[in-house]
């Protein structure tokens, strides 16, 4: 059997798989389905929600009390020498959490409560930054891309202006104006600086969308500029916007922690993850746990958000076809052949457990001679 036939059959099977996947679904449904199927993104989503819930319920949020015994300001005598963590995974006495699972700092404050408080602050900053910068980015990008001409030039120069301003200066200015800036003020300020990337992307999208027929049609029908921008064009850029604002979330966490680390962001007595690391980095040799937990949570949050963003990108991008595994392909191919039984089930490598009984017999009797050749045909394009 020639390689070419196998390839056409494969393509057909592949197309069939894809068609069946999306038949009769709206765009939103397709995207949701694809996103739900993205394993890494789903795991990340669960982990992120778990982290958020843990941070909020444990030490409480504002007036709501939490279930954890300490808060982030209380001092207490050291439970273990040096304030070592009481969390134990194995060994004598087996697994137990103890009073201070993440240890205590030199003043006897509970590190778990402080890390949780840090997560709350960092997450607040993250969401506000992303919200503010997405809103500004969309507005500037949409207006620049839609109206073009001098408005576009002006807005793009305006964008460049913001690229030049170093973020650190904002921290310093805020510190001067407000003493120690509260997380919300810091987040709004960062959001006001951070929109430039999204604005450029949205503008690029709008530049190409405005030449499309449906925009022309809306204009001919007498729709106002506002209506065209928000009703007709913006929904078409939603993919770019969602993906980039997700990625902005992780950038915002890293930005806030870096600023706090340099002591231009959140400062004591407020607690944020970057601030914790900055405070304890010199204690790394003696109290490494103070350093570890804050860092691990930064990494976990950023990683989760990045994976969610990646999953969204895959879900929104129609070109990003998920290539079915070799096994799924074979299965689909076999099914197609079962329907049209006159076709020869030539040269297939089958995972025996996956197929119906009669087929296995057919393949074992007929397909043995050239089973080896077809095994290589599926993946040679990359070698």
């Amino acid at each position, binding site marked *: 059997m020639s390689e070419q036939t196998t390839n056409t059959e494969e393509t057909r099977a592949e197309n069939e798989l894809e068609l069946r996947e999306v038949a009769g679904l709206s765009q939103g449904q397709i995207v949701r389905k694809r996103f739900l199927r993205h394993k890494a993104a789903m795991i990340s989503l669960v982990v992120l929600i778990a982290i958020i819930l843990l941070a909020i319920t444990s030490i409480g949020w504002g007036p709501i009390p939490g279930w954890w015994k300490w808060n982030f300001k209380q001092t207490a005598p050291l439970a273990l020498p040096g304030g070592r963590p009481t969390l134990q995974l194995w060994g004598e006495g087996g697994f137990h959490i103890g009073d201070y699972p993440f240890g205590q700092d030199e003043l006897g404050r509970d590190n778990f409560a402080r890390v949780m408080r840090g997560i709350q602050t960092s997450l607040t900053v993250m969401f506000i930054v992303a919200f503010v910068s997405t809103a500004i980015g969309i507005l500037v990008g949409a207006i620049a891309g839609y109206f073009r001409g001098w408005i576009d030039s002006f807005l793009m120069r305006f964008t460049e202006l913001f690229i030049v*301003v170093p973020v650190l200066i904002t921290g310093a200015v805020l510190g001067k104006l407000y003493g120690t800036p509260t997380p919300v003020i810091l987040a709004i300020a960062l959001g006001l600086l951070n929109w430039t990337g999204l604005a450029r992307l949205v503008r690029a999208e709008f530049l190409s969308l405005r030449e499309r027929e449906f925009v022309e049609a809306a204009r001919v029908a007498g729709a106002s500029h506002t209506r065209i921008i928000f009703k007709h064009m913006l929904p078409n850029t939603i993919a770019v916007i969602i993906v980039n604002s997700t990625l902005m979330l992780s950038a915002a966490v890293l930005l806030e922690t870096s600023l706090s680390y340099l002591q231009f962001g959140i400062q004591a007595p407020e607690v944020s993850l970057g601030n914790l690391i900055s405070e304890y980095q010199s204690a790394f040799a003696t109290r490494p746990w103070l350093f570890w937990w804050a860092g691990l949570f*930064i990494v976990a949050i950023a990683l989760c958000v990045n994976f969610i963003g990646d999953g969204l990108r895959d879900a929104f991008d129609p070109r990003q076809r998920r290539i079915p595994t070799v096994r799924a392909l074979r299965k689909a191919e076999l099914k197609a052949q079962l329907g049209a039984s006159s076709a020869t089930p030539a040269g297939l490598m089958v995972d025996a457990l996956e197929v119906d009984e009669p087929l296995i017999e057919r393949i074992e009797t007929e397909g043995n001679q050239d089973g080896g050749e077809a095994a290589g045909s599926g993946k040679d394009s*990359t070698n």
Partner: protein
Amino acid sequence: MYNFIFRRALSSLGVLLVATFLIYILVDVAIDPLSDLITSTAPNKQALIDARIQQLQLDVPSPVRYLGWLGGVAGCFIGKCDLGVAWTTNQQVTDVLVSSIGVTIKLVTLATVLAMILGVAVGVVSALRQYTGFDYTMIFISFLLYSLPSFWVAVLMKQWGAIGFNDFLADPSISVVTVLVIALIAGIIWQAVFSGDLKRRLIVFASAFVVTAGVLWYISATNWFSDPSLGFVVILLTGVGIAFALTAIMAGLRNRRALYAAVSTAVLIAAIWYPMQFAFRGATGWTVFGLALLVTAAGVAIGWFWGGYDRAVSMRISGLVALLGFGLLYVDRVMQAWKPYFNSSAINGRPIATIGSATPGLQGSFWTMQLDSFTHLILPTVALVLISFAAYTRYSRASMLEVLNQDYVRTARAKGLSERVVIVRHAFRNSLIPLATIIPLDFAAILGGAVITEKIFGWRGMGTMFLSGLQKNEIDPVMAYVLVIGFVAIVANFLADLLYAVLDPRIRVNA
């Protein structure tokens, strides 16, 4: 085109003017040069305050002071820059700036180049092996690195990289278990890169395992770390290996003339190893640079002599082999400085440094100083590479996948071109276009963005100048930083646009 460049340059200048003005006002609000005097208990407090107000012209409103500063900057066009004075130390900002830029460029260049090469290579391989174990692993690793806060990595590197490795160097022997584990990992990685059927994978795995284990065993048995060098044999073997690899990628091994040219260049490099030891004696930076040029030219010439129908390819390949081979010679020579360096009193057996860009008070030959700056560079470079590597991997993987799905790649395959030509010529080259526009921006960002790395590793570069200016309430160093970074950012943006238009003729610049 010229019209476009002119208009763009003019508007960029305007942006820079407005930006510096705004930042000047902001910084003026943020800092308080009188803060130390306000709290002082000196009897002549008021006189001191008056003197400082006089010195820094604090009685003049800040927009007017900005004009004064701008006048000093404008002096740069006629050759006498005046960027002001860092008043706490009375240093001219221009002097501080020059040394800071030098330090930052030294820190950033190597890291950016390494991250770029590694990132693009891994990203492309990852795209070619889409949805394999290698691809998934690399996606995960790059996401992980992308999510790491740089200050956290840097502190960890200091603790483990420096202290751990220095402890290891005190007794550089590798245990059998470590050798086997590393060889196993190397084998797994290489078989995943080469992919293919089971037989091919097994062969690749076995050879990678044996070679890695052998090299590690040799290193451990001969105590290589206490007196490292490459020597004639290793240079010859590595050179020939590079020659084969580059030919296989750039021309295909069937292009015999290119292969012969590359191999003879590699042999030439090994042959000049001995005479080079004399040429390197008493060398300076410029001699090394000159020798590198000379050797590369020799490689190009060898390619020309072998000629063939595709002379340019042979010349490119053997030039590259010569350059990389010269790199081997250079590394070999630097390694020879290791033993005296390691044993010198200034180092005291702990060569990997965590602070600063040079060992204070170390005297030695050019090669010792080179080695010294490498031992200082290694940690910050690794920290920077780890972080920007991830971004390059993701970009190049995405753009390679995008290109591989294009119709012209299918056409190239359909007309029967070899897979190498399709991937290297049609796919890889085009996938570099979006990357080429990111690189200038990235370089601009990293020039100003290494603030944290500089702070942790104690390098006195641009970031430190900016940060200490803010902390010590000096406006002029901060403004110098803003000026340079803003200028570089705007030029890089401009360059990126231009590059895009040059590389992709579908994009019109005048639009």
